[in-house]
């Protein structure tokens, strides 16, 4: 095997792999319209996503990661509140990006997608609009936390989830 792609196939990634494998004989594909259609189809709105992705059989969300996520995220959200209201865009992007990584790695898809939306909005939105997005993030975090506690009803998860 010389190379591989993961599904869903992204036309631009496919083009890059073909160029790598075929060298100068291949020209990059121009697939911008197809790519935008693909993204529209493959990315449902955040509210359509479950708070937690189901895991394949045999996989698990490690308790120490759940605990770190439950403990740290309220601090991140509080910090986000402060910097969003002041429209400190770089800080908003930085914290939202980090939270997106944590959420994504745990399978908290809805929260991860909302973080990505906040990252995008940080370019232009007003402080008030950014603050409202942070409130949406907090609500999604509460749903994620509830789903995590349902999945791992151990004493530490329950303790960390308490207000």
């Amino acid at each position: 095997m010389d190379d591989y792609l993961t599904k869903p196939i992204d036309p631009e990634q496919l083009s890059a792999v073909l160029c790598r494998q075929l060298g100068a004989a291949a020209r990059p594909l121009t697939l911008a319209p197809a790519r935008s259609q693909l993204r529209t189809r493959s990315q449902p709105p955040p509210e359509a996503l479950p708070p937690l992705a189901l895991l394949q059989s045999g996989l698990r969300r490690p308790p120490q990661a759940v605990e770190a996520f439950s403990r740290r995220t309220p601090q991140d959200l509080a910090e986000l509140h402060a910097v969003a209201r002041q429209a400190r865009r770089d800080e908003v992007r930085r914290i939202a990006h980090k939270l997106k990584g944590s959420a994504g790695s745990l399978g908290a898809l809805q929260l991860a997608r909302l973080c990505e939306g906040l990252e995008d909005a940080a370019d232009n939105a007003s402080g008030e609009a950014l603050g409202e997005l942070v409130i949406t993030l907090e609500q999604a975090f509460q749903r994620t936390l509830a789903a995590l506690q349902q999945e791992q009803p151990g004493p530490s998860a329950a303790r960390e989830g308490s207000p």
Partner: protein
Amino acid sequence: MNVRSSKLGPTELAGSTLRVLVIDDDDVARAVIVDLLQQEGHSVSSLPSPIGATKHIVDQRVNVVVLDVMMPSMRGDKLANLLARNPKLKHLGVVLVTSAREQDVSALLNAMGSIAIVAKSDIQTSLAAAVRRAASLRAG
């Protein structure tokens, strides 16, 4: 741990234990990745930053390093390029993990050549295979 050498052939790699180093400043993602790869049977160590990474890789004869792209002290893709140029590490496999936006991942894929890149939201489904493949490519 049952690794005799950092230079493993493709046949040996099929079901073998690899020595994997995970570098990610995000403690949640780091814990998820370490746990996943340990469940796969690998011997996994981790660092919260790239500081001291090269020494650790050489001393511990690491087979594959899993690097977060966006870290405050040094970007993972820059570190990957540095590691690739180190003659002592020519058998080291590298996998990048990222929560970058789709368009940024495409640009990274083009820039990083054959290095595998896994989205953090796909870690559970794609990382284990990417790690084995990275080790296999460098050993072959």
